[in-house]
């Protein structure tokens, strides 16, 4: 397996794990009160979004400079 392939596979698996973990954390935290926790929730949501974006980038759906990776 060449190195680029390995990168992509690790990125895909990692992104799924991270997105899932962030969403689970978000769900667990959903009802926590307090200012910092509201911020945490927004940030966990964005983190999950970032992981999904990374996933798409890794499988080549999204890429730079006009879509071609």
């Amino acid at each position, binding site marked *: 397996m060449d190195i*680029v392939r390995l*990168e*992509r596979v*690790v*990125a895909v698996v*990692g*992104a799924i*794990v*991270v997105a899932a*973990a*962030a969403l689970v*954390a978000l769900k*667990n935290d959903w009802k926590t009160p307090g*200012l*910092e926790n509201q*911020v*945490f929730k927004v*940030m*966990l949501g*964005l*983190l999950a*979004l*970032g*992981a999904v*974006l*990374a*996933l*798409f*980038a*890794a499988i*080549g759906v*999204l*890429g*730079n*400079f006009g879509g*071609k*990776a």
Partner: protein
Amino acid sequence: MALASSSYPVAGAQTHGEVDRLYAETRDLRLNGFLLFMVSDLVLFSSFIFAYLYLRNSGQGWPPPGINRLDVAFAAFNSVVLFGSGTTMHFALENWKHGHFMKYANWLIATIVLGVTFLGGQGYEYYTLMARLHHTWSGSGIFGASFFTLTGMHGLHVFAGVCFLTVLLMQSVMGKYTPQKYFGLTAGTLYWHFVDVIWVLLFSIFYLI
């Protein structure tokens, strides 16, 4: 660096109720101040992002001639590393709140390791970019200016974050925090999340669009 036992060190005299109230109030101030600091830091990034988007759309085409495509696969890998460190940090804080100090320490160490890995990955990316493109800072034009300034600034934030988290780890080992009073850890987590979330933005604008 491991914590000796699952019990945590209690700061001696700080159990008095009045002091707790004061703690809650000063904590509130510091939390608000820290959040506002993050807002102003966000504005700093936003200004540079505005500059990047402005230059990018100033009618010269993108990417500028002579600039190859960035290595999206590697960037995705490196991003997952950083995003992963965000979740590990979150688990670290959760475990501290619930008094699981060994788990806390492990998650925090994992976060630091992932942060350092990300920095290494970024260094590798810089190296390949410069080597492959034979471009120095100034020669790489507005692309280099935007890319290296923004990612470099983010890298500095990650580096500061790694230092911050290392200090927090040492402080918690030395007994500065309790499961009730741990504002430093909250601030560290907020900061680390901030650094991650900024990367979501930078990753999107540099590698995806």
